[in-house]
């Protein structure tokens, strides 16, 4: 895969270059004292420029495959968090997770630490905060390398989570009390085989872990020393995720190239849906937003993400347990997304359910964002460490190609899904972590067509800031570029918690 690079440019793009999604001058909020402006240049897939008519057809999925992807979203780099490790220490990030309120971020990786950040502090400009805030708000040292960290969903309401769970390379799942910085419990039931993935069901009704021992365990986190249910796969279980809508379904991806969905009330009865088609180990499974059909996005080491759907009803209450012996529904592969590189390493994948966006890292050391509607990426951003603040890969480099050659890659991503307090439905946040320990926080907002919309948006943002005073979005309000975009009324970001 070639490393696309584009000169940083602050000029407005012409309409003919509508397919190049160059970001205008960036205001990067870095957490160190450099005055360098880090420009997040972005390159879309090399398609010929479209005409306005192609835009009109975007509603039609089939035509959307052929017409170039339109980027409704603008991304900007909001913060770069350099690694806080001592010089030369290994610091690859394996997992990043926002807590359900979106206010806290936890990361874990090879460094055997859970680092926790206050998201609002990360997004504040340097000259605004009382002293530069470099580094995490809290850090817990753990005994083994971490593959996954997950905030435990609280009891609901506005409270930020105070418990974080993690799965580690010794096969142990541990929960830590964040305030006291100590472990509250651990379970060591995977025979010492690496835990690859950990997830909690909404409301912490259940937790699941996937391991090298080819099993997924499901247990009640409120009674962690109690029993657990086991699902077996043909290979190491690399990813698990509960249906975030609350339906009793668990998606599981395995090194045997398959992803399946289980009904957790009857794990032993087999899968209720199967996704066959990946050519390599399935590294991530993430539920896509609710709709008429159940949808899941998978990632694999074959360099693709795939969207699958199967009909299974949407209502959890009406769900009937699959009868013993009933064959699992074969999910239909809706679309395959490619452009990123993933052949040997976990590169991260996350779905922003409300907006229908998929983010992933890449072995080419880029962050990729796809829109579920189109097979090619809508945004690609090179990740190399900014000058003077190298990661843990040996010599600092400002060259994406050199960083990739040194083995650097984007290894973890997470979207802020949005909390019920978030009134701004057209903005989002994405965090990406690299194999050098560097974190980057991006904010994005949906482009608007007319100035009128911008005014409404500005008012809304100001009201939100006055009322909440929590997260301060550094939106740059721009007039539309007058491309005659059709306003898409249907796609709203919904709170899916």
């Amino acid at each position, binding site marked *: 895969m070639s490393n696309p690079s584009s000169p940083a440019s602050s000029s407005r793009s012409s309409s003919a270059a509508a397919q190049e999604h160059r970001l205008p001058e960036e205001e990067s909020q870095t957490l160190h004292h450099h005055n360098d402006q880090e420009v997040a240049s972005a390159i879309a897939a090399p398609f010929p420029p479209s005409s306005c008519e192609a835009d009109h057809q975007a509603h039609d999925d089939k035509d959307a495959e052929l017409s170039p992807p339109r980027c409704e979203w603008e991304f900007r780099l909001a913060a770069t968090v350099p690694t806080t*490790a*001592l*010089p*030369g*220490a*290994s*610091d*690859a990030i*394996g997992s990043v997770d926002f807590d359900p309120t979106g206010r806290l971020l936890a990361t874990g*990786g*090879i*460094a*055997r630490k859970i680092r926790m950040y206050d998201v609002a502090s990360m997004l504040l400009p340097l000259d605004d905060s009382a002293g530069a805030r470099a580094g995490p708000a809290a850090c817990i040292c753990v*005994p083994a*390398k971490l*593959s996954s960290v997950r905030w435990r969903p609280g009891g609901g309401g506005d409270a930020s989570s105070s418990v974080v769970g993690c799965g580690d*390379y*010794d*096969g142990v799942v541990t929960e830590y009390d964040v305030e006291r910085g100590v472990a509250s419990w651990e379970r*060591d039931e995977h*025979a*010492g*085989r*690496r835990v690859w993935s950990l997830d909690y069901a909404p409301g912490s009704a259940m937790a699941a872990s996937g391991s*090298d021992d*080819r099993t997924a365990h499901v247990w009640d986190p409120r009674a962690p020393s109690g029993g657990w249910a086991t699902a077996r796969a*043909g*290979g*190491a279980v*690399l990813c698990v995720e509960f249906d975030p809508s609350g339906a009793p379904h668990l998606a599981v991806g395995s*090194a*045997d*190239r398959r992803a399946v969905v289980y009904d957790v009330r009857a794990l032993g009865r087999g899968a209720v849906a199967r996704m066959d088609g990946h050519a*390599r*180990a399935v*590294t991530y499974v993430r539920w896509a937003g609710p709709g008429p059909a159940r949808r899941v996005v998978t990632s694999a*080491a074959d360099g693709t993400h795939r969207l699958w759907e199967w009909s299974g009803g949407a209502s959890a209450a009406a769900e009937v347990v699959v009868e013993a012996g009933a064959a699992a529904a074969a999910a239909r592969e809706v679309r395959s997304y490619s452009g990123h590189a993933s*052949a*040997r*390493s*976990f590169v991260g994948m996350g779905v922003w359910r409300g907006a229908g966006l998929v983010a992933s890292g890449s072995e080419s050391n880029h962050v990729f964002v796809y829109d579920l509607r189109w097979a090619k990426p809508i945004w690609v951003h090179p990740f190399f460490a900014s000058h003077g603040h190298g990661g*843990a*890969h*040996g010599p600092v480099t400002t060259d994406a190609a050199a960083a990739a050659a*040194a*083995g*650097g*890659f984007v*290894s973890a991503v997470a979207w802020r899904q949005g909390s019920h307090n978030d009134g701004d439905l057209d903005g989002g946040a994405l965090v990406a972590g690299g*194999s050098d320990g560097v974190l980057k926080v991006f904010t994005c907002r949906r482009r608007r067509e007319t100035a009128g919309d911008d005014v409404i948006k500005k008012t809304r943002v100001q009201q939100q800031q006055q009322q909440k005073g929590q997260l301060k979005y550094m939106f740059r309000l721009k007039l539309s570029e007058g491309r005659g975009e059709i306003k898409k009324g249907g796609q709203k970001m919904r709170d899916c918690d």
Partner: protein
Amino acid sequence: MDSVMAAVPDSPPQTVVLVSAGASHSVALLTGNVLCSWGRGEDGQLGHGDAEDRLVPTVLSGFDAPGITSVICGADHTTAYSEDELQVYSWGWGDFGRLGHGNSSDVFTPQPVKALQGLKIKQIACGDSHCLAVTMAGQVQSWGRNQNGQLGLGTTEDSLLPQKIQAFEGVCVKMIAAGAEHTAAVTEDGDLYGWGWGRYGNLGLGDRNDRLLPEKVSSVEGEKMVLVACGWRHTITVSDSGNLYTYGWSKYGQLGHGDFEDHLVPHKLEALKDSTISQISGGWRHTMALTSEGKLYGWGWNKFGQVGVGNNDDHCSPVQVHFPEDQKISQVACGWRHTLALSEKKNVFSWGRGTSGQLGNGEIVDRNTPVLIDALSTDGSGCKKLESSTAAPFAAKVWVSPSERYAIVPDENVPKAGEGTARGNGADANVPENDVKRMRVQS
């Protein structure tokens, strides 16, 4: 060429001199100045120049420092001392400066700790992420993580290089021991000291506070202490009369007093009061003690069989560990979840967690009774058929990038159950087109 064969005396059989165990790896020093290591190798702690696990003892064939007298494991790193060169070597996970090289890089082959060159070292102790060395003169140098004062320097600043503990000026330290984040010492006068993380009472000072400087433990029944060992969050000490005392965390019974209560000051182990204890070792959450008659006792966490008594139940009182022919044991070493023992007959046994190959018998299963390590034992192949490192010559410094040993997708070609191809934690189950781990050689 002369056709007469000169009478060549048989060289004495090679035997194990001492063993040590880390979080998931093990090492042995053999006669003839040979070092072996096995178990988890992901962070370079085995010293073979790569990041591979080893399921059987493997010789560090590229390491030729003369006169090695000790090799000590930390959690994810290893140290060795060459008496001939007066040189300490270290390798493995480097975070917090625990290797003493002045940085936090991981090291994959033994490298000299230059700051300690020329010092006559009596003993080295390694904790999770800090290390200490006692010189023949009784002075102590410490380096590594110091967030809880475990280096005894009066601060909480990590130290990438060894520093002398000034607080021991005028005191002659006899022996030192390091736990997860705490340190203990006994002096030639028989006094016991503790410093660092102390929240389970593991410093023996009667409270649950950390200490940034060495503090003397109040005399226990007037006894003089001669030995000290640290588990993860507990401490064990032996008096000159052979009595054993334990203090600190006991959630898993690792103090051995018949209950699961923490102790904030040294508490005598009544169950062994009729034995003279000659050697002790602290594991993650278990403890081992050796009597002068060669009997081995264990207690504490036993989930993986690391106590070695044939079951997997935690024990809060000492239980004797039995060996074939009731042979006497001369040394015991506890890792995090496994245990090694060396017998007077020069057999080496291992038990406990085996998933990373740390038991050294070629398997990855847990064992709850002692199993002979054939390659190292006189009742086995007697060190005659040892595997060797096949890595690059040790003159070159090798570095395996984190991308080569972390977050690698396991192979989808799953071995059938029973096949011994699964090594370690699947770390080296490479995807087919990338069989060779890329290594960078730095000068």
